[in-house]
């Protein structure tokens, strides 16, 4: 840059002073060159033609007329770019140009899957749905007769707060207070909410604080709370244990057995 004007240099120490970016003068005078500002000899200019229709299936793509146009060097379509090439982690299955179908969300018929399979324990691909599906609803079983449950949620405020840890318990018991069926889930401490598999152990048993500790331990062992939230992973793991005790005492213990030491 020949004679680009300079900023007057600051007097005294730079400590505590605002220092202009080294290229700030180029930026405020329009002298800075961005990719679009460069003209190189023999530059080939590309144009992208977008589909006018979302979610359209591509039946055929006849480019012969475009290829005959004066000055057109090449026409490239999805046929020439079959290799998947996603820049973003969510787009690993994207091709450069549309192949078969214009990639936008839309219906491809309906299907159902158990909620436990819908969530995937993967921080990047978090749901077991395809790119062209959206979740339209959750079907709750019509009867919950005989079941009782509770949900304990750790949060900083009382309302509209994301959980920092959560324990959910649903249980069906017989007249004696024995567990017939139990589903226990932890959330907010893994990329996905998870059913605790060892909750199977509760089946057929009366309230047993030791068994509660065992199941809680299993859930905590596999939890990976992130460091980025409002509380430490240690605290959140500890609260999962506390919530297991409280939730299971509430649903399973039901006052049959005097409270343990918690």
């Amino acid at each position, binding site marked *: 840059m020949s004679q680009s004007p300079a*900023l007057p240099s600051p007097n005294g120490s730079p400590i505590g002073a605002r220092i202009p*970016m080294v290229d700030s*003068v180029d930026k405020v*005078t329009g*002298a*800075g*060159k961005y990719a679009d500002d460069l003209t190189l000899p023999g530059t080939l200019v590309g144009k992208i033609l977008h589909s006018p229709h979302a979610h359209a299936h591509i039946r055929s793509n006849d480019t012969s007329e475009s290829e005959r146009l004066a000055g057109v060097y090449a026409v490239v379509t999805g046929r020439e770019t079959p290799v998947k090439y996603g820049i973003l982690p969510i787009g690993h299955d994207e091709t450069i140009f549309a192949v078969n179908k214009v990639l936008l969300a839309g219906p491809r018929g309906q299907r159902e899957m158990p909620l436990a399979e819908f969530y995937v324990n993967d921080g990047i691909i978090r749901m077991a749905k395809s790119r062209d599906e959206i979740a339209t609803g959750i079907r709750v079983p019509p009867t919950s007769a005989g079941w009782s449950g509770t949900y304990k949620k750790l949060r900083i405020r009382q309302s509209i707060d994301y959980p920092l840890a959560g324990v959910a318990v649903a249980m069906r018991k017989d007249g004696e207070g024995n567990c017939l069926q139990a589903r226990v889930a932890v959330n907010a401490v893994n990329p996905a909410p998870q059913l605790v598999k060892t909750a199977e152990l509760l089946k057929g048993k009366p309230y047993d604080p030791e068994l509660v500790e065992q199941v809680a331990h299993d859930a905590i062992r596999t939890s990976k709370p992130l460091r980025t939230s409002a509380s430490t992973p240690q605290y959140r793991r500890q609260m999962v244990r506390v919530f297991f005790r409280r939730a299971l005492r509430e649903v399973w213990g039901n006052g049959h057995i005097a409270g343990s030491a918690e």
Partner: protein
Amino acid sequence: MKKELVRLRINGQIREAEVGPNKLLLDVLRQDFGLTGSKRGCDDSSCGACTVLIDGEPQMSCLMLAVSYQEHEITTIEGVAIPGEGGSELDPLQRGFCMEGGAQCGYFTPGMILTAKHLLAKNPEPTDREINEALSGNLCRCTGYTQILSSIRKAIELLREIQPVEVQQG
């Protein structure tokens, strides 16, 4: 389409080019005159990156046909610095944007500076609200408008220092 000779007065200089009657002012500035300080952001007047001053008024050059502006005074970002002996000197607005970090990535800065230039010419002591309103057509995709606001405030401060001198001379 038949090309015709256009004569434009840009930054105080007469410049000529053979252009089609449908050529946009932005493209003439960038392609025919190499004035790439005016940027193409959205191409549909949403972003303000292509703002130039036409007779002192901010206008988006991506919407204007070059041939229609032959009788007008066009100012681009390249014409904002003040020419002087031994090189040009930055305009107070340009200094403000440098000193307060308002240039950020720099792509939308030329349009912002030209819009602010018009604002301060009209209203040397604008309120923050007036500044925000004036700049509402200039987007920033770094999304930091605070430093842009403080850059303009800084420029107002710098202008106040200069002002009394000009009054004595005038």
